[in-house]
Every structure is written in structure tokens, then in C-alpha cells.
């Protein structure tokens, strides 16, 4: 690794160490946040408080552009077992096509159960 890249990596690691990671998310990028009205991209390392202070000094419009602050778990998709169940039951149905009606029947029942589970699962 060249000296140039070593320096670059060191700077990058230091920046990462000083990063505060548990900050809430801005989930709704607004069309108001057009580049002309805002700095190109806000630094990711800023904490919520620092960010609020910065924005507080720069006026109402920028505060609105930042959008609602939400928890990560609210906006990220939840884990689900149904994709695996659905894939397994489709594989079973196709196997049943050549292996016989019993396998096919089990596969169809599994498929229906997984379809219902998938549809009824709360997001």
C-alpha cells in the first residue's frame, strides 16, 4: 500500500471513530432540499444536536428541508420468515409435479399457508 493510500485510510478511520452512529434518520428527503438552497451534502458525522444547532442558525427553510426525524426501526423493513416459507413451498410444488400427487398436494397447502402468512403479516 502506498504512503498516499495509507494517509487516506488513516484519515478515513479517524473520521469514522469520531462518528456518532446512533443518530435518528431523516427519512423524508424533500424536494425543497434542492442543491441551490443547501450545502451539497451535510456531513454525516454530525450528531443530531450539532445538526440542529447548525440548522437553527441558518433559518426556517433549511430546518424544513431536513424533514422528520424518525427511528431507524420505523422506516426499515422488518425481518420475515415468509419469504423462505414461500420459496420452500414453491420448490415443493415443482418437485411434486414430477414426484407425484402427494408431494404436489402438500406443496399446494404449504403455498397457501405461506401466501396467507405473507399477506397478513404486519409490516
Amino acid at each position, binding site marked *: *500500500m*502506498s504512503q498516499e*493510500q495509507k494517509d*487516506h*485510510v*488513516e*484519515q*478515513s*478511520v479517524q*473520521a*469514522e471513530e469520531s*462518528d456518532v*452512529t446512533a*443518530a435518528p*434518520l*431523516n*427519512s423524508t*428527503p*424533500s*424536494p425543497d*432540499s*434542492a*442543491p441551490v438552497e*443547501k450545502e*451539497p*451534502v*451535510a456531513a*454525516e458525522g454530525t450528531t443530531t444536536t450539532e445538526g440542529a444547532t447548525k440548522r437553527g442558525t441558518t433559518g426556517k427553510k433549511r430546518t424544513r428541508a*431536513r424533514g422528520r426525524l424518525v427511528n*431507524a426501526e420505523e*422506516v*426499515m*423493513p*422488518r*425481518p*420475515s*420468515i*415468509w*419469504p*423462505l416459507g*414461500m*420459496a*420452500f413451498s*414453491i*420448490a415443493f410444488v*415443482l*418437485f411434486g*409435479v*414430477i414426484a407425484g400427487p402427494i408431494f404436489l398436494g402438500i406443496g399446494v397447502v404449504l403455498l397457501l399457508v405461506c401466501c396467507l402468512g*405473507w399477506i397478513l403479516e404486519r409490516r
Partner: protein
Amino acid sequence: MATRTIGEHTTVTTTGVRRKRFSESYIGEWITTTDHKQLGLMYLITGFFFFVVGGMEALLIRTQLALPDGKVLSPQVYNQIFTMHGTTMIFLFVIPVLSGFGNYVVPLMLGARDMAYPRMNAFGFWLLLLGGIFMQSSFLIGQAPNGGWFMYAPLSELVAGHAFEATPHMNADFWLLGTTLLGISSITGSLNFVVTIFKLRAPGMSINRMPLFSWMILVMSFLLLFALPSLTVASVLLLLDRHMGSHFYQYGNGGDPLLWQHLFWSFGHPEVYILILPAFGIISEILPVFSRKPIFGYTFIAWSGVAIGFLSFTVWAHHMFAVGLPSIAQAFFATSTTLIAIPTAVKIFNWLATIFQGKIRLYTPMLFALGFIAMFLIGGLNGAALAVVPFDYQITDSYFVVAHIHYVLFGGTALAVFAGIYYWFPKFTGKLMDDRLGKWHFWVTFLGLNLTFFPMHIMGILGMPRRVYTYPANLGWNDLNLMASIGALIIGVGVIMFMINFIKSLKYGQPSGDDPWDAFTLEWDTTSPPKKYNFLEIPVVRSRRPFYDKKYPEHADWKSVVEH
């Protein structure tokens, strides 16, 4: 008030201690995940696992053919091995690995938090894994597919319509059902990519500012959506022939075996571009970063990818020149095949112009990218030769064709995949891969692939047919075959070096920081590995190199470049 401790085994509430959910256990988290990054890694790991399986099948083939009159495998097993080698490498290695890169990187590149349909994303992965296990499990009962990766009818029929049984056991069924499962997986993945790319781009990222890797994933997704139905129809008709007594492909009963070839290759040739276009995208990301220049001719590279996509649907019958097509059809398909070389050459010239007078940094990803250009050029040129009908007559179904496809798919796609792994490994893990070992890996692989596949051109011209089980000693093919087999072993050594590097770097790798390559695109504008939500704030994009603009505001592209 309820309090929640993230990362602990239990959650303490005012009402007591809640049991840990299944999805919070280590195994459960992987099984139930809908996070595009985790799924991307699962795709990559699965694809690499099948690469090793397909590689071992290749070594068995080369061991059988190393010497004349070889008896390492029985003819029946040999048929199964070469069929599964092609099937594994195409359906279970290249497509999953490219989808893995797409899954992991595309949402990050676009400034999105996840794919558009996270659960469907997980569904696609599980179908792929089950389809792969289903197909490989056929070896356990000694009935692996044995009709070639193209499963030509009537060889794949239960009864060929004449007085012989073609494939009376379940061999072909495993292939037909396995590829159907993989097809459903690819369709779901493609839909997800298309919607993600069209709907989830960060503010300011117009389609004309999108990274080229995302462009190529978009084109690949459309190709899959339009090409796969053809394979599915062909497979269903063959299943009906085999199990329901229909005669779609049985000449003796009024069917037409050529129908299979038309249906299969109208999927199969777009498939070749499905396998190579994302590789073009990877190269188009790596070359500018390691040349310290913006990509040359962005618009031409993006739209030549689209042109290749369109043209790929017009060339399928060049696989069938020898079946006796009418002259007008031969002329049409020869012309369209030659035409497709133009947008491909456009890309190569643009890549060369990108590195021309650049401040080149020869790290491992760049070495693999340069190797890709050289090897793909050979594969492309001998592909153009195959478009010449009289020449094709001479070498059709010979080892020349094997050389061509391996220069394109191993010298091309596989080198690009390795380039992508070395390039994005720091993003996946927060660690750098060992560059010295990586360079050894490159040179060993480069030597091995040329030693294996270049002699195959000569074997083909000397008349050695592909898929042949063995050969007598007096045909002049002995030395070339031995050379190819030694080359295959060298490739195997290269793969072992890569695995050692991968595991070693994963455990003891040097921390990379967030942006070890001083890169240009948004995936580097977040932590390595990224947090579950990807970006603390959705970035705003003003040019084709948004992260470069952020790091070097005084030289930002948007200050000097006018884009539409």
C-alpha cells in the same frame, strides 16, 4: 415506561422480561433478514460456493481429458459433470454473484435505504438457494442432468419419437424444474432492481447521473424480464412432452426439435449479455477511481449498454447456423451479430480513453479490471469470427466455441467479479484485502486461464468436438489437452489463494476506513460496513460523482460540467 436495550439478549419492560425473538438470534437474523446488504452478502457467498462446486466439476472434466483414452470418469458420469459444470457456472455462480453485487451496492449507489421490495428480495434469494440445492442434489441419486446446459430436445425427451429412449430417468427433470425455480428467482430480483432504480434514487440523481453499474444492472434486469419467459415456455413444453404425452419436440409425432433450439437460444443469447453487462458496470466503476479521472464518454457507455440489450434479442440463431437455416435468415443473424460488436467496442474504447493519461494506481481491483479488458477483447474478437457463417460451419460445436465462451465468461465476467470483490470488500467488511496476495492471485489466474483456454482455439480448428468424452492418441490433440488441464489446475491454485486471502483479510485485515480508494460514488459516503439504514441523511446529488464533489468542493464536477 418501557426501556429497550438494543443488542442485548432480552428486552426489559415494566411488565417483565421478554424472550428473545427468533429473528434476533444469530441464525434467525440471517434466515429472516430483508436487509439488502445481508441478502447481497448471502447471494455472494452462495454464488461463490457454487463457483467452487462448478470449478471442481471443471477439474474433473480436465482430468478426464488430460490424456488420450482417459478412463477417470464413465461416459455417463462425464455427461452429467459437463452439463452441471455449465449449468452451475451460468445459473448458480455468475447470476447470483452479479445479483449479490447489485443487491448490496445499487441501493447504496442510488442513496436509497433498501431495495423497493425487501421481502421479495429475500424470496428471490431463497428460491435461488433451493433451486441450486435441488439441482445439485440430483448427483445423490445418480441422475444429474446430462443433456448439456442447453438441454437440447429430443435428447432430453423421455422417448425421442423413434425407437430409442433419450433420457428415461429424472435427469432432465431436475434441470427443467431447477431452472424454472431459478427463473422465478431472477424475475423477482429483476423487478426489484427496476423499481428500485426508477423510484428510489436520491434527490438530484437523474437517470443521467446514475452510476454506470446501476445502469448495467437496469439493462440486465430488463433483459431477464424479457428473455426468461422464453426459457420457461420451452421448459414447460418439454415437461409436458416428458410427462403428459404431448409431442412438441418429437419429429416422429409431428413435433419439431428445432422449436426447442429457437426457444432456448432466444433466452440463451440475451443470457450471455445478462452475464456480461453487470461486469461492464463493475469495470466502469473501477477504472475511473484507479485512474483518478471521470469515466470517458459516460453517455456512450450507458447507451451502448442499452443498444447491446436491444440487439441481444436479434442474434439468437447464430447458434444455429449449422441446422440449415434459409440464406436470408443466415444473412440477417450474421449481420446482427456483427452489429452487436459496435456498441461493445464503444465501451472498450471509452475504457481505454478513461485510463489514458490517468494517474493509474495498480491495486488489485485495477489489475483485474485491466485483465478483464484484455481477455474480453479476445473473447469478443473470436465471437465476431463466429458470426461469419462459412467459418461457423467449420468450427461449430468444436472446442473453438468452448474457448470463446470461456474467454468471455471466465476471462471477462469472472475477472470482473474478482475485481468487484477486491474493490468492494472494504465496504462489506471495513477491512482491506491483502494487496500483495491479491496480485499473486491475479497473475496466477491470468496465466492459468490463458494456458487453459487459448489452446482450445487450436483444438477446435483441428477438429476436436466439444462435449467429447475421450479421444484417441493419434489426432494431434494430446499436448494441447495436457496444457489445458495443467492450466485448469493453475486456475484452481489461484482460487485457493483467493480463499486464503479472503479468510485472512476477514480475520486480520487492516482497517480500511470508510473510503479506502478515494472513490467517487455514494456507496463510499457512509460507514464501512454501512449501518442498517445506509445513510444518516439521504444525500443530495448534483453530478455524476457526488462523493467526489463532497470531498473536493473546490473541484466539484457540478461547478464545471453541464449535464442534463
